[in-house]
């Protein structure tokens, strides 16, 4: 826990946010929340009460999805850090640290996420609440479940990103692969369009893939689409994937570590 705290502190300490930058980032989050608000408003105007969900719930799902995009964007994370270190050849300094690499990445990324949550996601949520009909969760229990599933969602995303980062160690450049990766993750995670809208085969596929742990499950719990035993089942689903992905990541890392080629030198 000390490790996590120190990385979080470091993030708060050294993250250079430029003034101009910060307001623009906040603005672009607002833009996305605003647009998703309108998309659902128009669509629900055409078909009120579609999929047994109210417009308010749907807007909350969409706006929250956009606000959380500031911390769960798959384009940020350990894979970017690893790729950067590989490119510059600085990865060996990470390996020399008396620190488990997987844990180091987790702590570092958790710190950054917490930093981004408090500086970007939180203000966005407040804006969403004040201006865009973002509703509060149905009750304390539902809110607590949401927080739990959000943390688990973080773990799933981290583990997937870590695996992608390991690909950077093997292929040395993942920049172009990340575009496709980001698109696929956001799609199957239900970041923009919830999984219950997906038709037949795509819906069935999205239901078993781990990605829905990242956005769909926490968001559905938040708006009350998943509650009670259904919510617990969803959390169980997240846990199962975490239990698969973490050992997988560590195993792959162990393999790769032994044949790590550092570029340059």
């Amino acid at each position, binding site marked *: 826990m000390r490790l996590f705290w120190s990385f979080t502190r470091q993030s708060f300490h050294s993250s250079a946010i*430029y*003034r101009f930058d*910060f307001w623009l980032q906040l603005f672009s989050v607002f833009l996305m929340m605003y647009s998703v608000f309108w998309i659902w408003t128009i669509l629900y105007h055409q078909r009120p009460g579609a999929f047994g969900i109210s417009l308010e719930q749907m807007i909350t799902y969409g706006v929250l999805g956009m606000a959380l995009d500031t911390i769960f964007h798959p384009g940020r994370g350990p894979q970017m850090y690893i790729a950067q270190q590989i490119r510059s050849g600085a990865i060996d300094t990470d390996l020399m640290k008396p620190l488990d690499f997987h844990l180091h990445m987790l702590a570092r990324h958790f710190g950054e996420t917490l930093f981004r949550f408090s500086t970007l996601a939180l203000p966005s949520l407040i804006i969403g609440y004040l201006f865009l009909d973002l509703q509060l969760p149905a009750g304390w229990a539902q809110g607590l479940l949401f927080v739990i599933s959000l943390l688990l969602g973080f773990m799933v995303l981290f583990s997937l990103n870590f695996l992608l980062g390991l690909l950077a160690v093997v292929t040395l450049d993942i920049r172009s692969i990340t575009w496709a990766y980001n698109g696929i993750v956001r799609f199957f995670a239900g970041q923009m369009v919830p999984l219950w809208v997906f038709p037949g085969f795509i819906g069935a596929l999205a239901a078993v893939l781990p990605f829905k742990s990242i956005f769909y499950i926490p968001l559905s719990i938040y708006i009350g689409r998943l509650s009670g035993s259904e919510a617990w089942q969803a959390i169980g689903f997240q846990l199962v994937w975490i239990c698969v992905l973490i050992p997988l990541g560590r195993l792959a890392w162990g393999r790769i570590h032994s044949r790590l080629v550092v570029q340059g030198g």
Partner: protein
Amino acid sequence: MISVRHLTKEFKRVKRKEGFLSGVRNLFSAEYTIKRAVDDISFEVREGEIVGYIGPNGAGKSTSIKMLSGILVPTSGHLEVNGIVPYKDRKANARQIGAVFGQKTQLWWDVPVIESLRLLKDIYKVSDRQYKRNLEIFNDLLELDTFCQTPVRQLSLGQRMRADLAAALQHDPKILFLDEPTIGVDIVAKEKLRTFIREINREFKVTVLLTTHDMWDIEKLCSRMLIIDHGQVIYDGSVEQIRDTYGGSRTLVVELEEEVADFSVPRAELVKSEGRKKWFRFNRLEASPSDLITQIGGRYPIVDLTVEEPEIEQLVRSIYQGQGRRTEVM
């Protein structure tokens, strides 16, 4: 050739706040400080001179070189390069100067050197004849032909520097700015670079303004030295004079075959000792390195040795300490 009078350059910089949540506090306000990077300097450089332009990091060297090459506009003062005011006519100035920045190459990273040269030929409108003649000279003096088909990213630092020099010289500039041209280059390659710079200065009367941290560069190349610090010229004169006045001390570094206890040598002072390596400081007027080497070598077998010139920083420090004598020197 170069004339600089009362040249001043000021920068406005954002003051970053320190401490916890500094990032957050910076979101709301910013403070500025004004830094005078070049502070009222004046000097002349005559045609055919090689002038060492030295000073500690941040002294204002690169700022003034940037003004001379037309990248920066001065805050006040006057400067002229071969009759052209660089910031008023950047392109005309660019045609008559060449510049090499040791830290970053100006060549295209992923393509063979020769392709960069061909492209620069077009950019500078170099005639075919001039291009061919210069290529021969470069092949001759820089052995360019041994690596001109290699992409720049695969060159050694020394080769890269030679390629950069060729690129900077193929349009026959009258003035050459060299910013740390030997930084990070090994001894043999350094020597080659120096020979080449001397050669083009002698043969083609190219005026050279050179910044460096390597005192040997100055020693071997320059007749004159300009030392600046805190944006001001603190010395302008011959290299010999400053060496005699301030830079008398040198350090002999010997690496012995095996570890021995500290020992003393007449007319030299043991200043540092680290395992098999010993540092002896001596005054070049009182002792010669060869004497010292014979003395030490007579006692213990020597594996390796170098003679270190005083560092620029040390030189600047001794100039400050000897402020009283400054007028005599100048």
